[in-house]
């Protein structure tokens, strides 16, 4: 048997911090065979990124490899080096790093310097390791850029990272890693920050390049769906130790370790049975949820919230020195309707306008045209025409849950202050009543009331998101707008928060507008799903219908691109290779929409509406 590219033996990494020493990686053993992909899976904090940094010796100053070996067998010269024995800034390590072992990172936004061109940064990698002049390096850069799928590689040499989309930036990162033809590529969450269709394309690209060059890949991810689709072997880590390792087949067909089994149950999947509940790894019990009665309120006759032909354009200044402006239509004639006690899922990729819609519902932005109608049982009213007392009441009825639980809580306020702030603003209750209310809210979201005097930084991401939910519930709202509430959370915690939202809905009779890019999550929580693309709602249907019979090409592409943690349902990469799903003018007839047009929504079966282009619009007229 051929020697593996990298053998990790008894790898131990210690951190020395002010709070004492801490072992991040504890006696790790695994091999990366030649030409294969090994996936390192685990929650955040499990030590998977630290392992990658140890292999490249780019650990932070506080961390140190204290034991073990990292035997690197370079196939190009047959030599074998123990990386763990090299000094981090030694000559040998410099030539390995980036030359024989390359790495790509999670955030393509921040992993590239904004002050240097793509060409400069990529050719630099080559010039460090190969004895070539700038002209040759540029030529090689153009070659590798065109290989990773840049539409105009010559021009790309002179572009800056911020001029590119997230997908192209990640392609540039891959080009930078691959230009030196490394034997091992370490990919640290390479697709986590990307949209699903882009994710599928990047995964496809990595697989193709691997087949071409015969390199090995160490893929670090928390997404079991990605693992099921690209890994040959899987290593599951938890708190610095390996819980389970084996081939993809073994891991997915026959998970042995309870941790792995629990992890698999915590991830929303498409094939879930109706009313099947996710099982979080660490269940959080809400003490009082079962005992809560839904408040007795007048129910509206129709939908509680209705959005009619909402349109919003933004004016962009195209540059610093030119006075030219550009008009961008972010939201085009969006119609939505949210029934009382129901959940409407709004799905779309970044920049499709879903957040703009939710902000217009909040009345944080004013639409160019269209209406937001709210009905709390006393009749329908246009939200953007409300004033005075009526507006205050509306603000009480509609609350927001944010994506980032870290920046959405003021770090200088205690939990008590955070949760009573809405009550103080709306002047509700005496301070004793507020205290009681806040204690009750904490119980609702499953937090201990000792939390009241603490500050947000002492809570984990999931706990903070539950604080955010408690704050949103403080004013007893009717509608919650959830903008990607679980995207920033670990899979294990995602399940907790999703279950909490579901329980709160049934206990308090809340209505949710659930905005997300993650189809599986929306599938788990929503009753009706609306798919959004480039400011259009392209398809809207009850969730079972949508997944059974997606009609619009964009919906189909979106569904096809979601990696399912089920090895019997692999991604169809060839289908996603064409691209252009998010270009309304590139959609096939009858869905094609010319720039400046809106198309029409057409009902093809009860509750299932699809946006059609001009041809059909004329037929309908």
């Amino acid at each position: 048997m051929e020697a593996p590219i990298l053998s990790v033996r008894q790898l131990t990494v210690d951190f020395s911090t002010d709070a004492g020493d801490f072992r991040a990686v504890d006696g790790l053993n695994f091999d990366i065979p030649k030409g294969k992909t090994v996936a390192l899976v685990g929650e955040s904090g499990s030590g998977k990124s630290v392992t990658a940094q140890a292999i490249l010796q780019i650990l932070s100053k506080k961390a140190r490899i204290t034991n073990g070996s990292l035997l690197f067998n370079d196939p190009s010269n047959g030599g074998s080096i123990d990386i763990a024995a090299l000094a981090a800034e030694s000559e040998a390590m410099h030539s390995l790093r980036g030359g024989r072992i390359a790495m790509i990172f999670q955030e393509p936004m921040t992993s590239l310097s904004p002050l240097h061109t793509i060409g400069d940064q990529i050719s630099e990698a080559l010039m460090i390791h190969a004895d070539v002049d700038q002209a040759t390096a540029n030529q090689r850069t153009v070659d590798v850029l065109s290989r990773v799928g840049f539409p105009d590689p010559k021009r790309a040499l002179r572009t800056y990272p911020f001029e590119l989309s997230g997908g192209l930036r990640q392609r540039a990162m891959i080009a930078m890693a691959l230009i030196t033809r490394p034997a091992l590529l370490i990919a640290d969450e390479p697709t986590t920050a990307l949209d699903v269709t882009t994710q599928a394309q990047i995964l496809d690209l990595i697989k193709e390049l691997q087949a071409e060059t015969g390199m090995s890949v160490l893929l670090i991810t928390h997404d079991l769906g990605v693992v099921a689709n690209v890994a040959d072997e899987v290593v599951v880590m938890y708190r610095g130790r390996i819980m389970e390792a084996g081939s993809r087949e073994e891991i997915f067909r026959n998970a042995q370790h309870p941790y792995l089994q629990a992890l698999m149950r915590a991830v929303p999947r498409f094939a879930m049975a109706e009313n099947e509940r996710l099982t979080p790894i660490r269940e959080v019990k809400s003490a009082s949820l079962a005992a809560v009665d839904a408040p007795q309120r007048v129910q509206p006759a129709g939908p509680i919230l209705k959005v009619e032909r909402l349109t919003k354009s933004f004016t962009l200044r195209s540059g610093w020195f030119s006075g030219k402006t550009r008009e961008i239509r972010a939201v085009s004639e969006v119609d939505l309707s949210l029934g009382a006690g129901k959940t409407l899922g709004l799905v779309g990729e970044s920049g499709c306008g879903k957040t703009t819609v939710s902000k217009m519902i909040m009345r944080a932005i004013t639409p160019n045209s269209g209406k937001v109608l709210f009905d709390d049982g006393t009749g329908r009213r246009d939200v953007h025409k409300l004033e005075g007392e009526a507006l205050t009441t509306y603000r009480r009825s509609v609350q927001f849950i944010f994506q980032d639980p870290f920046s959405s809580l003021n770090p200088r306020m205690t939990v008590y202050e955070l949760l009573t702030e809405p009550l103080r603003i709306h002047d509700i209750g005496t301070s004793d009543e507020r205290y009681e209310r806040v204690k009750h809210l904490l119980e609702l979201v499953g937090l201990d009331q000792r939390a009241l005097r603490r500050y947000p930084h002492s809570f984990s991401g999931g706990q903070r998101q539950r604080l955010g939910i408690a704050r949103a519930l403080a004013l007893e709202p009717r509608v919650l707008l959830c903008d990607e509430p679980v995207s920033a959370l670990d899979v294990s915690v995602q399940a907790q928060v999703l279950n909490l939202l579901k329980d709160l809905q049934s206990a308090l009779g809340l209505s949710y507008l659930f905005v997300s890019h993650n189809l599986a999550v929306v599938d788990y929580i929503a009753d009706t799903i609306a798919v959004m693309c480039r400011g259009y709602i392209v398809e809207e249907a009850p969730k079972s219908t949508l997944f059974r019979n997606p009609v619009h090409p964009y919906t189909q592409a979106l569904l096809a691109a979601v990696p399912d943690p089920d090895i019997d349902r692999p991604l169809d990469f060839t289908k996603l290779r064409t691209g252009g799903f998010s270009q309304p003018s590139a959609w096939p007839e009858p869905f094609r929409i010319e720039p400046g047009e809106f198309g029409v929504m057409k009902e093809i079966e009860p509750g299932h509406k699809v946006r059609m282009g001009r041809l059909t619009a004329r037929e309908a007229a």
Partner: protein
Amino acid sequence: MIRFLLRRIVTMAVTLLIISALVFFIIKLPPGDFLTNQIAELRAQGESASIAKAEFLIRQYGLDKPAWQQYLVWLGVMPGPNGLSGLLQGDWGWSFEYDKPVVDVVGDAVWLTLLVNLAVVIFIHLIAIPIAIYSATRQYSIGDYIATFIGYIGLATPSFLLALILLYYMNRWFGISIGGLYDPQYAGEPWSWPKIQSLLSHLVVPTVVIGLGGTAAMIRRMRANLLDELGKQYYVTAKAKGLGPTKALLKYPFRMSLNPFIADIGNLLPQLVSGSVLVSLVLSLPTVGPILLSSLKSQDQFLAGFILMFVAVLTVVGMLVSDLLLAWLDPRIRIGGAR
């Protein structure tokens, strides 16, 4: 680009106009002016000949007119006793205190001021940047603590006090007389090699004294900026490419951390002129600072007005320069803007 420049120049002109009005009327705010004060003094002494001269000057420079008329004449948009002759025409007025045209009073001082302060700016950057880089890359090391400690002392020491101390000890230990910018025998002499040598040796102490506070402040800020940038992902990327530590540091995080300082050039230029008044007084440097101070005290309106306007022009031009430099150095500003 051209449109941007034109727009900026128009705004600059408007800004300067507003500043000129403010400057003039604030100088005129206290009752009286240099000449009326002088006349009152002369009356008390009963010197009628001088009084006649002062009254002639009052008429000559229109100080008996209403303030707004004086302003317009000073600006050069309204004909005064000498016809249209004001700032716009390059006539900077007459200094009553020195009994000379403003040009002659300020002339040499402006250049010497710029020289001293340019030396200070160079000194600050040469000293502060290496220390800041050292400090940031070795955060919480002994060296970092020492640099931080010295930095705080530098921040906390009043510069005029340091000037006095150095004045005394430099003379006592090295026999250098450091008052002024050159030895007294060169005063009024044309520029020659020995005079320049004398100037250079006199420049050392003022540079250190004036620059110390700025150096300390710059070390603190640069260190903080650099520490922020060192934590960024692109620096890890650079290291993961196999770039050596020094090159990776200088090419990526260091370059990023310079931005705030470039944005600061606009503030730096006026500091060059007016920043070192106290030290100049103590070290009796023939710079603009002390002249400005005395002219304000004696209400020598044209002299004070000119110096303040000069500082204002430097500020406005400095802002433009730093904006242009930023756009040149940072593609996000040059090309971005839309986001």
